């Protein structure tokens, strides 16, 4: 059979409903996963990709049930290994739009190695990491993103592990697209997912996702409506980092550190750090990624968006070059390579 040659091959106009599978969704009522599913299903028709060319791959955990609810091709694999499966799929058929749905345990604990290697290779995968800072499906143990000292079933005296920063991991792997959004910020989430989808290369999106059963309100300290504007900063390319209900606070680069400044008192917009998603070096993005409440506002939006050749394009390129150089492989010739002799 013929394979599609491009993602946009005669895309019929689809609607959100076309991407809803016939399976009952089995997350806990009130789980942040519902909101993420809804936004992904909303964005899909916008991309103009026929649904048979879309594959959702996941590992294990609450978030990893996601593929069952998408009426596309789907693969619910084993714990932490979705990037491996997805890499095989994408290398096998680069025309497919391949998504990885993972969580903080799946993607950063058991599967941390696969995540960084998929990102550093720049395989054209869209990786969405649902970060709820807890193990939900195993009923409430601390996760690699849980805060130091967190009390859970497995840490009754408090966690003594330092948490890992998902964005920092992605940037350290030099991922070409790195962003963060929030389950309940529906518009921001949809826009971020769409940008990730349109990026050519690996795209990593961390989504703050509330687990209302085992870690309810994990992000309330900076995401609750009354405080949100003062405790988060929404990044925009080419714009200075300004935040606050009154938009009166900003981020300035001082020496090798970022600092929060009050605009007005001798400081104006021109003194602030201007966000550049396309910077070749990930250094500034890394500094921004490290901003945490309470010392800093929590950054939301796209931290990095650069273009580099994708893994699968390079792989196919080598095959094309090899065929140009040596011709399409002949089995007959291959078997007869080297010194041969006749016995009669």
């Amino acid at each position, binding site marked *: *059979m013929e*394979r*599609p040659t491009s993602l946009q091959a005669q895309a019929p106009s689809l609607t959100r409903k076309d991407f809803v*599978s016939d399976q009952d969704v089995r997350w806990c009522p009130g789980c942040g996963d519902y909101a993420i599913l809804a936004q992904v299903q909303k964005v899909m028709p916008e991309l103009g990709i*026929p*649904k*048979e060319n879309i*594959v959702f*791959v*996941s590992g*294990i955990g609450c978030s990893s049930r996601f*593929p*069952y609810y*998408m*009426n*596309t*091709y*789907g*693969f*619910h*694999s*084993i714990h932490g*290994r979705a990037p*491996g*499966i*997805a*890499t*095989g*799929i*994408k*290398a*096998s*058929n680069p*025309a*497919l739009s391949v998504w990885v749905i993972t969580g903080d345990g799946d993607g950063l604990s058991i599967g941390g*190695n*696969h995540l960084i*290697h998929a990102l550093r290779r720049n395989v054209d995968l869209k990786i969405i990491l649902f970060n709820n800072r807890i193990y939900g499906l195993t009923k409430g143990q601390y996760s690699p993103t849980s805060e130091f000292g967190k009390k859970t079933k497995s840490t009754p005296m408090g966690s003594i592990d330092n948490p890992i920063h998902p964005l920092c991991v992605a940037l350290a792997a030099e991922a070409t697209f790195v962003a963060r959004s929030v389950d309940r910020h529906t518009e921001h989430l949809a826009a971020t997912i769409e940008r990730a989808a349109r990026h050519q290369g690996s795209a990593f999106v961390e989504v703050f996702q509330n687990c209302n059963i085992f870690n309810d309100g994990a992000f309330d300290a900076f995401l609750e409506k009354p405080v949100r504007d003062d405790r988060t900063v929404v990044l925009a390319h080419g714009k200075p980092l300004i935040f606050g209900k009154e938009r009166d606070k900003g981020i300035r680069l001082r020496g090798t550190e970022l600092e929060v400044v009050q605009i007005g008192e001798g400081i104006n917009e021109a003194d602030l750090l201007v966000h550049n998603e396309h910077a070749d070096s990930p250094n500034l993005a890394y500094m921004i990624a490290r901003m945490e409440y309470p010392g800093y506002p929590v950054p939301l939006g796209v931290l990095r968006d650069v273009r580099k050749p994708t893994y699968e394009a390079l*792989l196919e390129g*080598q*095959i094309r070059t*090899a*065929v140009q*150089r040596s*011709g*399409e*492989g002949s*089995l*007959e010739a*291959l*078997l*007869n*390579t*080297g*010194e*041969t*002799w*006749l*016995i*009669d």
Partner: protein
Amino acid sequence: MSSPTLIEREVKKEIQELETVTIRFAGDSGDGMQLTGTQFTNTTALVGNDLSTLPDFPAEIRAPAGTLPGVSGFQVSFSRRDIRTPGDEPDVLVAMNPAALKVNLPDLTPGGLLILNLDAFTDINLKKAGYTSNPTEDGALAAYRVFKIPVTSVNRSALKEIELPSKEIDRCKNFWALGLMYWLYDRPLAPTLKWIESKFSRIPEVAKANALALRAGYAYGDMSELFHTHYRVRKAMIEPGKYRNITGNEATALGFIAASKLAGRPLFYASYPITPASDILHELARHKNFGVKTFQAEDEIAAMTAAIGAAFAGDLGLTGTSGPGLALKSEGLGLAVMTELPVVVIDVQRGGPSTGLPTKTEQADLLQAVYGRNSECPLPVLAPATPGDCFHMAIEAFRIAVKYMTPVIYLSDGYLGNGAEPWRIPDVGHLPKIDVRFRTDPEGFWPYLRDERTLARPWAIPGTPGLEHRIGGLEKQNVKGNVSYDPDNHELMIRLRAEKVARIAEDIPEAEIFGEDHGKLLVVGWGGTHGAITSAVERMQQRGVPVSSVHLRYLNPFPRNLGAVLSGFEKIVVAELNLGQLALMLRARFLLDAISFSKMKGKPFKIVELTRKMEEVLES
């Protein structure tokens, strides 16, 4: 005139005919013994002898020079007859230093030829090898025909015109020794001269030095009064056809490329470097013009799962490893069983457990391959019998994987992988076809709707309109493929997966008996021990002792006639390089009192070990 040339011309050198010769080259791991052995092998193949090789090298890249652990050896047996093993014991030992002598002398046949580099027998080297007195002087070598040659110094004097540092000159001494062996066994220099020319084309001075060393070694044999006789082994009488030399790992790589061609689907090979399987990755990476995609994964698990992903998307998904890597791939294999996808896993077995003996051979992953996963997780297991058979079994692995939609394990071993033999190049037109049928029709499609005969589910690859579906590691509802926790469905699915693999027995060749189909003793083996077992049984048969053998290339399921075959014999000996894993399987399956014959030394069976065991069993 004391010119040696004039004196030597007086000496008439005899030529003596031999049937089979086994030579072992041994030296420091930096002495180029593997290269020397390989060159001797290639030239010997071109002369038309049948041959078999056994490289034996340390896991360390450069163990301390001159020490026992640093000794590297290469054994080659060649014959005018059809032979199947690299020989039990060498007739000839070339030892480049005292450590090489110490490690290898116990294997040399009494009366065998011993060629020593006398220059290397210095006090310091003798001490490193643990000798308290010099064996070249103390009579320790009296049982052998010893040729003490100052190889280092005669090589230096032969190469005195060459403008290279003395260290480089000394590195050529393996070619000098090779040249001498070419004279001694009447082989042409041309193939190695040609190889030197192309290998060192960018460093002409090195090419010149090696070529000169080779010729000098040859001339030394011809001229020196040390040697009165040289030997000839005539062309072998083997099946007519076009031949080439091949190692098991090469044949494996070529077999999987052939499978890709025969299936009309690209090969996707994901692997993490591991001894002794890495050569397969290297070989496949060289053949991208066949559309082969090679992926050096970040670990064994990623290699396994990437191969599964590729299979899901319609490529021939392949991964390769050795025992420790197979352990890491177990969970992925379970997923491939659950999702019923055609991936093949190569395990080039090595000594274990754990890191074990990376460069030595063993057959102790059989139970891991057949049973080593959580729950009931059946999959077909195949094992090539000879280096050349690796080619055919690779094709067979994908024929089965694709037809039955199942993962398959292909159990090679270090002996097959690194060992070489002349291989009759198959006619491409006669290779089996691999029939790939992707499901395209959405009408009546269900992901787990099975073919009535094979029980295979459809291969429905992403990109096919109307077949969007979800698979995964959770238990599947029969036919529809949705997640199901229904108890009856679970048991049904467990039984269906087992039945699917069991039915493959109807689609593989019956076990062939070597010898009579009934009698007192049957020797059963599998995989890489084929050469030694068959040769040993043949030797018994030639002595008039009625012994038969059966060699299994299919370990799960077993050939359908195996039970009947086993029932024709009073005694069954199962010979394998483990503590009785196939014996355990045969006892469990056929309720028979099989006698296990084990060897766990990181080395293949010797023919004599097997004949001795047969004699013992027959006498008891």
